[in-house]
């Protein structure tokens, strides 16, 4: 019974979509307003983080490309698929699934709607009309690792992570390897708190490293990082780095720089590609070269940097952009 209803509704949706598309192509077939872009996020677009930045990207696409946009918050794999199907049936040209978890839905729905391009903002599933964006945040944490190694007074640098997942390990690996480019050898420590929300645990984990003599730290702990910055603020002579977003203002006296992802720009770049029919399916890598990954310096702390370190860091970033320096990344 349920199955029958589902089929009926599906058929109905297809018929409606057909009618809708038919009408549309009749009315304006030349205008570029026909470009339609949709976004599915796993959480609220007012989270001041991952999801909000994707929505900002969608708004930029609307503004700069004049595209028609739509957004849906989706919580379960069933939701992902239903949203994708709905968007595709409504004739969207480009659909973003914001995260690793959208890959299966993209591959499944993508097969049935070859005219729609499905992009997941992480992952490794590639089909003729399905591609992942891979953010090479490692390029920025590598540069920051070099800075950390160059400025650590006690030659000890550290990293505080949420859960030890490949993407987090990879940013830390690059940080550690970057430090090896510094003039002298430094010790590296990493601690994990086992979740992404325990602010108090992040604070204690950071304080424990500081007590062991670590004086330059990076994090990758999402929301829990508030505790990381609190620990930095209360400890003299400790400098830290932000990740994913510009977090320089979370502790302006302690955050030297942030390794940031410009997600809105990444979505815009992909949308441009699809709109101009230049798109080809692949693992879409964005790094320093595309200005999607960046190092944002906290100018208020410029004086903390020994002479030459900033220039050396900029030179290293330039070499990464040119491809003369290969940044190591985890295999995932």
């Amino acid at each position, binding site marked *: 019974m349920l199955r029958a209803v589902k089929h009926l509704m599906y058929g109905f949706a297809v018929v409606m979509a057909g009618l809708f598309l038919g009408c549309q192509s009749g009315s304006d077939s030349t205008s570029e307003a026909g470009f339609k872009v949709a976004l599915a996020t796993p959480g*609220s677009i*007012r*989270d*001041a983080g991952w999801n909000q930045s994707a929505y900002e990207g969608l708004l930029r696409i609307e503004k700069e490309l004049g595209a028609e946009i739509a957004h849906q918050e989706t919580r379960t794999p069933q939701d992902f698929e239903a949203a994708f199907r709905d968007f595709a049936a409504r004739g969207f040209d480009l659909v973003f699934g914001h995260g690793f978890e959208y890959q299966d839905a993209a591959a499944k729905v993508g097969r049935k709607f070859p005219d729609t391009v499905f992009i997941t903002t992480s992952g490794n599933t590639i089909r003729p009309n399905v591609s992942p964006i891979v953010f090479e945040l490692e390029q920025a944490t590598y540069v920051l690792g070099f800075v950390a190694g160059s400025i650590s007074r006690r030659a000890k640098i*550290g990293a505080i992570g949420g859960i*030890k997942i490949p993407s987090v390990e990879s940013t830390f690996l690059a940080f550690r390897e970057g430090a090896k480019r510094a003039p002298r050898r430094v*010790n*590296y*420590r*990493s*601690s*994990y*708190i*086992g*979740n992404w*929300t*325990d*602010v*108090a*645990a992040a*604070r*204690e*984990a950071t*304080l*424990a*490293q500081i*007590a*062991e003599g*670590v004086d330059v730290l990076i994090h990758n702990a999402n*929301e*829990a990082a*508030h*505790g990381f910055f*609190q620990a930095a603020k209360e400890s003299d002579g400790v400098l830290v780095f932000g990740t994913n977003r510009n977090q320089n*203002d*979370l*502790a302006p006296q302690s955050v030297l720089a942030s390794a940031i992802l410009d997600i809105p720009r990444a979505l815009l770049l992909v949308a441009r590609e699809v709109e101009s029919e230049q798109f080809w399916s692949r693992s879409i890598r964005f790094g320093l070269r595309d200005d999607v990954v960046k190092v944002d310096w906290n100018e208020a702390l410029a004086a903390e940097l020994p002479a030459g370190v900033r220039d050396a860091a900029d030179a290293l970033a330039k070499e990464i952009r040119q491809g003369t320096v290969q940044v190591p990344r985890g295999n995932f």
Partner: protein
Amino acid sequence: MDGLSLAFLITVLRVALPLGYAALGELVAERAGVLNIGVEGMMLVGAFAAYHIGVATDSVLIAMVFAILASVLLSACFAFFVIVRVADPIVCGAALNILALGVTGTLHRTLAGRMNAATVAPQADGMMLILIFALVAIGIVVLLRTTRAGLTLRAVGESAQAAYAQGIPVKKVRWNGILFGGAMAGLAGASLVLWVSDTFVEGMTNGRGFVALVLVLFGGYRVGRMTVGALVFGLATALQFRLQALGFEIPYDLLLMLPYVLTLAVLVFLGDRVKGPADLARPFYG
């Protein structure tokens, strides 16, 4: 004491205190025969209120008062369903946790959207919070052991029917137990925001309410043992973060497990086979 070991001791206390508060409240509720597994949710609501009221008023005291009120309000909902409607306490407690996570998350997103992300709550004096805990804990021990009210509370937990036959207002006693549990969970959440860290994040309690439940159970429903349990948990947590910072090649999952394993081991070792209140989590229709 040198700076290093002082910092270590403070970490131990910071981890232990919220657990101690939450467990103390749960202990009283359970001695009255009510099992409230919604401690986690009540703590979360307390933390949420403490942060937003603290930021708005810049007063630790007002933040604490509102944290207690918010948490007591939530525990009153629980009491209504469990005592008045005689609903299953486990189901209600679980519902409380989900409700608290959803409500605080939604409200926080709405409120935080208009705030600077760097906004922190005013900070309380940790020694004051510990002193309050010590006073309340001693008060509870004295109350339970030596007063008529304490005897009444225990009687209700052991056999609600027998207590009822003696003319004890069973429902009223249980209401009080639940509301006290709510107040303590509110203080636990407040201390989490006003001392242990300085901000609110969705789901920041991260299972502390459940740890508190276990402390009550394995602490044999005794205030002293439960407090020892909380301190052992704090000690093991501080220790495992130090071990991680030292760079030992031990999988971090095992180190993160340490507080749980050690606390259980210590409490099981301490305990002679205590049995809980006989009428715990049984419905009372009187």
